[in-house]
């Protein structure tokens, strides 16, 4: 590659190899006013890739609500920022690393975690929590075990070494992901509101500084790979995958935070996808300035790298900064102390151009504005997803045995304990994790204060597939509910929108539908979207994944002592069901795992009801009326009861209320906006709920060593736990 000259004839084949259409190439000619050279073409191709330009999704993303009084910075920067009081800010974002993780699960997942942490600390935050949302193919697909092993080890390998706890996440298994797994990583950091750093370059003549790992020939065209569909040959093509170096990133983090405590930085931006190109162009564009780079000064790992390779390399663990003039030495000393590479590689200009020099010659010269502003944006044709016919009650018969059905759900691959995964993550380092994985939302204290952040990631892809709009609503609502269930106030979300090929109208329809539903829910719940990421073309041989808009939510608990968990706390407490039960079985886990059918519409989400119910539950938790709380989701009431019993090591006996809902539908239906709480004051809970128009039903009491639903089932908590815990370890051990 490096032997190829920069001045070449740009043939239609070369244009196509760069993933650009003829029309897009026309725009490039127009922007340049001449034929680009190879480096310039490469720069356009990555800047205009789906991954960097959001060309298929931009028009729709704009419809999402992004504001609330507590939002300091919404989408557009490296990560979103919210105000959490007392001069503290929470900074967070989620990102995908799907394709690399399929090709090299360990390194792909590891570098995904490294990348998202850089997005957060580039803004001045110390990362305090990581989350991971994973989707794998069918458990018995021949690749799944190795992928699960590699991805989990990679996420742990990077986060553990960085000393940032991985506090939660979610996992699904579905054949739709056989050829295209999803690895979405989220990072949450903390900063002071008056020490936040942005990426807009300023100050003509100011030095542009490169810090971190040296540039190698890693992952050239990673951004375009992330924007292309897989086929059987993709593995043959074997693009170079990056190897993560968490040790270097840890040093880079500490060095950056130390420099950020001074007044030396004007602007800073991490080098993620499309590395040096994307970071410099974005800094220049946001600041409305020109930028000149001397590529000879860029620290290089290998000899003979061409301008093209240097500009398109995706080597990890690197940052670009603009410094205040005269502060270079101070900065250099800090990076030297941490043993991190530091080089002045250019300066800001008033030309409005992005100029590259190598060996004393200009090897690239592009006007910045058109490179960004003329990026294509498509309103791709889309088709709404046809609604599913309702599932008649008779179509979802009762199981042969209610107890067996419950065991099947708590031991199924989507319902079983994820302990095998999260015990491979250091979820306690930094000594502020006060609610671990395994509960509804994780809780991480704001160091040295009584405050805690609540964090959850959620989406139910099978709902989104059956009805994207309802699925989009549900993903946001479930995330909001999980944060509420620990007592926290949900504040904002980040998202990671994973879909198939947007050039197919039915896939585009899924994207449009999910965004519509998400937007409605975010508005109704005052839960704005402040950052996110889109990953398209998740297809293999024309088969798309389930639409998977993962939602990562953050909430605040002002006094961590007011938190609650889902474990039953004591014997003899009343168990109260809050919210309305209708016994909706369409798209339920019961229908799929017990009856082996995927049918019907997903449960409808009533956002007003969701909000009303959540607000009242939060009040009950904070006033200590509720001693334990758990939201109802996959598997409905029965699974929620079982999880609370397993977590607490205490049984329960309940009666189903007299309704015309069939017992199995009452137990396994997945109606939304519901919670279970335990309490010693059921009357107070009931009257509070009734006053707000929220149905509250006392179901029974905690106690004993068995879970009994009168007339339906009795199972010992030990047996439930065993089934719940055994599935993943046994499967992964290969038995």
């Amino acid at each position: 590659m490096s032997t190829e000259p920069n001045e070449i004839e740009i043939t239609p084949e070369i244009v196509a190899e760069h993933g650009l259409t003829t029309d897009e190439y026309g725009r490039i000619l127009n922007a340049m006013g001449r034929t680009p050279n190879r480096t310039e073409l490469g720069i356009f191709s990555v800047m205009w890739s789906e991954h960097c330009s959001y060309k298929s999704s931009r028009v729709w993303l704009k419809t999402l609500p992004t504001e609330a009084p507590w939002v300091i910075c919404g989408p557009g920067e490296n990560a979103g920022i919210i105000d959490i009081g007392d001069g503290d800010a929470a900074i967070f974002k989620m990102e995908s690393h799907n394709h690399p993780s399929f090709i090299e699960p360990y390194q792909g997942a590891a570098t995904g975690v490294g990348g998202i942490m850089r997005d957060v600390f580039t803004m001045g935050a110390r990362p305090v929590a990581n989350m991971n949302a994973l989707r794998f193919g069918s458990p018995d697909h021949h690749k799944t075990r190795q992928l699960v092993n590699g991805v989990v080890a990679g996420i742990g390998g990077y986060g553990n070494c960085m000393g940032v706890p991985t506090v939660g996440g979610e996992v699904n298994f579905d054949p739709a992901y056989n050829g295209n797994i999803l690895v979405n990583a989220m990072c949450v950091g903390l900063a002071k509101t008056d020490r936040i750093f942005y990426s807009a370059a300023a100050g003509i003549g100011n030095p542009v500084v490169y810090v971190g790992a040296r540039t190698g020939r890693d992952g050239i065209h990673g951004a375009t790979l992330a924007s292309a569909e897989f086929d059987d040959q993709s593995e043959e093509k074997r693009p170079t995958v990056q190897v993560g170096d968490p040790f270097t990133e840890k040093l880079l983090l500490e060095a950056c935070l130390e420099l950020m405590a001074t007044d030396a930085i004007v602007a800073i931006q991490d080098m993620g996808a499309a590395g040096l190109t994307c970071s410099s162009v974005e800094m220049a564009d946001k600041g409305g300035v020109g930028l000149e780079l001397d590529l000879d000064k860029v620290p290089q790992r290998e000899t003979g790298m061409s301008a093209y390779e240097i500009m398109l390399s995706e080597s990890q663990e690197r940052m670009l900064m603009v410094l205040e003039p005269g502060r270079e030495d101070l900065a250099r000393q800090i990076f030297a102390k941490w043993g991190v590479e530091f080089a002045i590689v250019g300066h800001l200009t008033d030309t409005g151009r992005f100029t590259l020099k190598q060996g004393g010659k200009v090897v690239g010269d592009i006007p910045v504005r058109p490179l960004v502003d003329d990026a294509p944006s498509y309103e791709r044709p889309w088709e709404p997803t046809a609604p599913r016919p309702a599932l008649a009650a008779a179509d979802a018969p009762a199981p042969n045995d209610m107890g067996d059905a419950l065991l099947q759900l708590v031991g199924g691959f989507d319902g079983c304990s994820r302990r095998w995964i999260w015990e491979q993550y250091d979820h306690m380092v930094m000594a502020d994790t006060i609610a671990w994985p395994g509960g509804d939302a994780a809780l991480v204290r704001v160091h040295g204060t009584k405050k805690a952040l609540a964090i959850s990631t959620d989406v139910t892809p099978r709902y989104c597939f059956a009805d994207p709009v309802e699925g989009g609503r549900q993903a946001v609502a479930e995330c909001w509910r999980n944060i509420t269930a620990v007592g926290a106030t949900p504040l904002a979300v980040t998202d990671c929108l994973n879909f198939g090929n947007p050039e197919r109208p039915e896939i585009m329809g899924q994207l449009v539908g999910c965004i519509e539903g998400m937007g409605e829910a975010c508005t109704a719940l005052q839960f704005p979207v402040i950052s996110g990421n889109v990953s398209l073309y998740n297809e293999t041989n024309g088969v798309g994944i389930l639409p998977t808009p993962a939602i990562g939510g953050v909430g605040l608990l002002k006094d961590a002592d007011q938190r609650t968990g889902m474990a039953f706390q004591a014997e003899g407490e009343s168990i109260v069901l809050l919210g309305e039960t209708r016994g909706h079985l369409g798209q339920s886990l019961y229908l799929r795992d017990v009856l082996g059918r995927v049918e019907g519409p997903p449960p409808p989400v009533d956002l007003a009801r969701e909000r009303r119910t959540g607000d009242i539950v939060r009040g009950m938790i904070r006033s200590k009326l509720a001693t334990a709380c758990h939201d109802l989701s996959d598997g409905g009431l029965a699974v929620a009861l079982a999880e609370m019993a397993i977590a607490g090591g205490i049984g329960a006996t309940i009666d189903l209320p007299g309704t015309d809902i069939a017992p199995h539908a009452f137990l396994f239906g997945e109606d939304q906006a519901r919670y279970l709480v335990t309490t010693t004051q059921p009357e107070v809970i009931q009257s509070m709920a009734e006053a707000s128009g929220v149905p509250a039903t006392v179901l029974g009491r905690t106690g004993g060593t068995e879970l009994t639903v009168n007339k339906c089932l009795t199972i010992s908590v030990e047996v439930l736990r065993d089934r719940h815990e055994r599935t993943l370890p046994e499967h992964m051990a290969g038995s």
Partner: protein
Amino acid sequence: MKAAVIVFPGSNCDRDVAVALHQASGTAPAMIWHGDSTLPDLDLVVLPGGFSYGDYLRVGAIAALSPIMQAVRRHAERGGAVFAVCNGFQMACEAGLLPGALMSNAAGKYVCRHVAMRVENTDSPFTGGYDAGQRISIPVAHHDGNYFADDATLDRLEGEGLVAFRYDNDNPNGSCRDIAGILSDNRRVLGMMPHPERAADAALGGTDGAAMFTSMVETLS
């Protein structure tokens, strides 16, 4: 108590252990950079957990060569106390402060969870706050906590009462004879895989590690 925590590139439990010491003693320990080659006069040196030098090559191996480790060795030779947790334990073995080596976990995986342990020796500045045989629960978080030494060494450790903690039917890593922590001959150096600093605050899920910090404060001041 004059205490210092050594910070290596890649340490990541340095703050956690400093917080626990601060809580127990009322004073914040000094944080000393690995590149220094001398130590002030100290009652206690802490080698914290983390991934010093990325744990590349072998856990703790490169850190054991840091300039500061010479000074730590001299401090230990003078009878100074050294508290070596997790990565610190790995370094202490690599540096020869403690016998044996830490190999990768038998299951080949990183493991982070609470483990049940037994206090085997209460006659040290670290363990005096426990009763002999007391069962405690403290988290581990490591990929290489599988303690190995030859039989002669193990027999000697056991014979001389230098095994400080043992996993209690709950060995998370395959370590020889369920060893979770050991003492040096003079019992002034403790190396252990579990993290007591993560078990010294009720909000973190338990306080079984707190007695170690109060014990250090009482005996070493």
